[in-house]
């Protein structure tokens, strides 16, 4: 019989995986697409060229792998937790994206944008403190 502690543990564990691999995937995709843009000086890529470049980029494949891990964790946790409970779990991910963008991609993150990220996290935390399950399913 599953205890409440077990339920919380596996929920937090999968949410942690989501928070780590979701932002990582986005950053890797961003880096891969930037590299693609830099290497294709000249006329814009056609659809075939676009797909070819995407499929031959190791960085983009790593990004896709990270997002796939995120997606599997996301689907599993949705099998028992409310969507409105799981969705706010990505709050930490917004902060992590800003950190990764700043330290890995060397993007400029202005103080106002940092404030926005913090506000987003606060809002999502407020949402996360509402009842996690509001439907009476079995």
């Amino acid at each position, binding site marked *: 019989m*599953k205890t409440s502690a077990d339920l919380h543990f*596996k929920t937090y564990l999968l949410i942690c995986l989501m928070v780590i691999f979701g*932002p990582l995937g*986005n*950053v890797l*995709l*961003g880096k891969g*697409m*930037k590299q*693609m*843009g830099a290497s294709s000086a000249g006329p814009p890529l056609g659809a075939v060229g676009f797909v070819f470049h*995407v499929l031959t980029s190791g960085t983009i494949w790593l990004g896709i792998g990270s*997002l796939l891990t995120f997606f*599997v964790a*996301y*689907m*599993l946790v*949705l*099998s*028992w937790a*409310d*969507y*409105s409970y*799981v*969705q*706010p779990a990505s709050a930490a991910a*917004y902060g992590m*994206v*800003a950190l*990764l*963008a*700043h330290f890995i*991609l060397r*993007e*400029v*993150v*202005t*103080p*106002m*944008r*940092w*404030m*926005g*990220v913090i*506000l*987003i*996290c*606060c*809002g*999502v*935390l*407020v*949402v*996360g*403190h*509402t*009842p996690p399950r*509001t*439907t009476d*399913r079995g």
Partner: protein
Amino acid sequence: MLALVLYLLIIGAGTGGELCVARAMKAVGEVKDFRPSALLALIPRILRVPWMWAGVALMATAFFSLLAVLSKENVSLVVPVTALSYGAGALGGRLFLGEQVTPRRWAGVLLVCSGVALVIVGRA
């Protein structure tokens, strides 16, 4: 204009896809066995739920829209903007999944949207 359409696709199709996936996983039932063999055995059950196919199609649309936007904009701007999906998610959760969205939850969504506005204004 194209960027606006792509952002709308990321938010609308992305949230719609997540709602469909959530509905599909509720139909599959709580996963209690996390061994790789058990997870692999779960795949056919998931694929038999039509909501999953609708969700994957919508999320794929959002994914390629995200790729297109990421080729032009900084990831630290693009990803926070997608936080607008919290508003769409709260609405969808209420209308599509029958969840109760309390005033407190709406307040949280408003905070998120305010944060998104700051992120856009603070664009370098």
